[in-house]
């Protein structure tokens, strides 16, 4: 059905084109993004994303603070998955300094990162539902996300910007009873995935709206540098947790769900969405294994000097956040402050391909495609 629209012979009904600004104040741009859209009736002929409304000079700020003080800034990049951003920076710093962190720290990091991945995917699924007009799944997702946020509040006192994973360790150990609470949450949460499927995933209207829409072919995705669930939705089995394992991800058994084109074409909105749903299950699996194997005793910090002074040199390290490959490029000149820090944002690359995949679709589809890419403007603008 969607194919019909995009290949419609519009020469006969060609009308005047109109420029439409979607955003920066718009309910469905997932932040302050402006999409300048050229429309011919309902059909979109060109999309130009304008970013920078949330630019806070992240990279420049980092040059003026010590290495430890960078961590709160990483929180504010991808504010939906702060743990994963902390994790990425910590991994990069440890690579730069050659620090080996205790076994327990690895487990704690994996547990919180996967929990945060679940929370982040909740937001992605829920808001994607909102974008295609389903209101209820959004609140179902937020009901369950709330439980994760409560867990994090118990863990580090913050609900959104955690500042929990530090260079060489984590800020503090799990509080008493936390492990049991996580188990409890996982038991509660696993059956809920089926609920989302019943309510949204296999809804006929939802499939009509998302299947075959906004197809991102694998070669286009790779040439744009798209990563994470968006790339996997296009059928490419690429996950840094498996392909370039960092921390202790090689110790766990989990699958990499990829888009199969079950409802339409490989790489359509539905595939990207369904990859996220299935990643929820995988994250639950990883969290369970990490909890089972976690050493209960031990220190949560590696031995580090009071002031971090990495040796001269540079490092590029990347980790898998809920949005894809998050890269940190850090240049050290031996001083306590980074000489240069560059963040490679997965959401930025995802947004860059929107014109390619959303051109020729209708306004409603552009919103759906944008939702399926799951962008976070904090990370794009930095």
């Amino acid at each position, binding site marked *: *059905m969607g194919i*019909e*629209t995009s290949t419609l012979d519009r020469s006969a009904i060609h009308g005047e084109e*109109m420029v*439409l600004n979607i955003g920066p104040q*718009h*309910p*469905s741009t997932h932040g302050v993004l402006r999409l300048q859209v050229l429309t011919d009736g*309902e059909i979109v002929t060109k999309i130009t994303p304008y970013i920078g409304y949330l630019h806070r000079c992240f990279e420049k700020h980092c040059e003026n603070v010590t290495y430890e003080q960078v961590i709160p800034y990483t929180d504010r990049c991808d504010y939906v998955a702060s743990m994963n951003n902390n994790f990425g920076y910590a991994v990069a710093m440890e690579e730069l300094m050659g620090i080996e962190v205790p076994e327990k720290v690895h487990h704690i990091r994996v547990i919180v990162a996967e929990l945060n991945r679940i929370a982040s995917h909740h937001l992605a699924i829920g808001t994607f*539902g*909102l*974008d*295609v*007009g*389903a*209101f*209820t799944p959004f*609140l*179902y997702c937020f*009901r369950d996300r709330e439980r994760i946020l409560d867990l994090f509040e118990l863990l580090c006192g913050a609900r959104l910007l955690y500042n929990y994973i530090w260079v060489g360790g984590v800020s503090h150990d799990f509080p008493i009873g936390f492990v049991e609470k996580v188990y409890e949450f996982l038991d509660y949460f696993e059956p809920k995935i089926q609920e989302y499927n019943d*309510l*949204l995933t296999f*809804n006929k*209207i*939802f499939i*009509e*709206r998302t299947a075959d829409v906004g197809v991102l072919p694998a070669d286009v995705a790779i040439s744009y540098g798209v990563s994470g669930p968006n790339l996997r939705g296009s059928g490419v089995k690429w996950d840094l947790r498996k392909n370039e394992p960092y921390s202790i991800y090689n110790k766990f058994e989990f699958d990499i769900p990829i888009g199969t084109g079950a409802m339409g074409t490989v790489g359509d909105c539905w595939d990207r969405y369904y990859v996220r749903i299935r990643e929820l299950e995988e994250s639950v699996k990883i969290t369970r294994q990490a909890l089972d194997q976690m050493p209960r005793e031990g220190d949560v910090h590696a031995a580090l000097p009071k002031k971090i002074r990495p040796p001269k040199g540079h490092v590029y390290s990347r980790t898998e956040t809920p949005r894809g490959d998050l890269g940190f490029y850090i240049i050290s000149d031996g001083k306590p402050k980074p000489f240069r820090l560059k963040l490679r944002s997965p959401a930025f690359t995802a947004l860059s391909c929107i014109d390619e995949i959303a051109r020729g679709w*209708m*306004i*409603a*589809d552009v*919103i759906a495609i944008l939702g399926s890419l799951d962008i976070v403007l904090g990370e794009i603008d930095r």
Partner: protein
Amino acid sequence: MELLLQKFSEVSFLSGIPSALLFVFAATLIAVSLFMFVAVNAIVAVYAERKISAFMQDRLGPMGQGVGLHAGKWGLLQTVADAIKLLIKEDIIPSLADRKLFILAPFILFIGAFIVFVGIPFNQHILVADFNIGVFYIIAMSSIGVIGIILAGYGSNNKWALYGAMRSAAQIISYEIPLALSLLTVIMLVGSLKMQDIIIAQHGLIWGILPNWFIFNNPFTFIAFFIFFISGVAEVNRTPFDLPEAESELVAGFHTEYSGMRWAFFFLAEYANMFIVAAMSAILFLGGWQSPIPGYMDSPAWGLFWFMGKAIFLIFVMMWFRWTFPRLRTDQLMQMCWKYFLPISFINILGVGLWDLWLN
């Protein structure tokens, strides 16, 4: 109306007043009471919508807060508070808007919904006017609203509003056709356009156990009911057909620029239209004020109860739709209307005709 005038003429102290004046008085009385009904309907429906959506989404919805009972017990006063808020809000008209059209639009939309109530029988007696073209009148008048929507979209001088209005015009005009065609099946069986005749024709039992409502009359009217109801939902722009006001795409659609009382009129009209669709479905296919057990509980008071019960149930179904389904896309909406509903409606008319011939 006739009944009211007759009652007036029986009252002795009114006998000196000329009948024309009495007519005006009666008409005003009826108009005011209908307006009250529409307003109360909107207030109750908004509260119900909030509570129903809340329960479907694992929330509580509006609740009284603490000792002061902020919005009444269980939030009962929430809608009243909202209405007061809307009344005292600043009236904003965009400087580049077409003032006349902008001001006129909500009233046209509301009038389109309001005058339909003249033709709706609430029970055996409560009916303002039982026209001999009752059904036709209702279908004709309920289409006036679309003019209001187009004016709102055009007059706002806003691209989102314009999109909403264009979508709405296409949608309402398209869905009018299957709506009217599925309604024809009932008229074919009754042989009259009068509302009361249609309801009276649904008296008794059919197939031995079921009430003789048209939904159960034959397979074709059964299908016609669903087409009628779904088209009706599309007519009143409710999810999954709420494209004209799709909040995730068009911000708020045709009423993007409206606020305060003008905005409230759009909502008054929406809930009035919802009631009309539910009421029409109930009258045409579910026996109107007829009791489900013929011969029992069919006094006028019970008639009002049955009619309102059926209508409220159907309104609940619409709310249920809204909080369950995603939204269709414009082309899918049109496809559903022209490729599926329209041919099925034609087959329905043919089928009902043959069925009627075969039985009689």
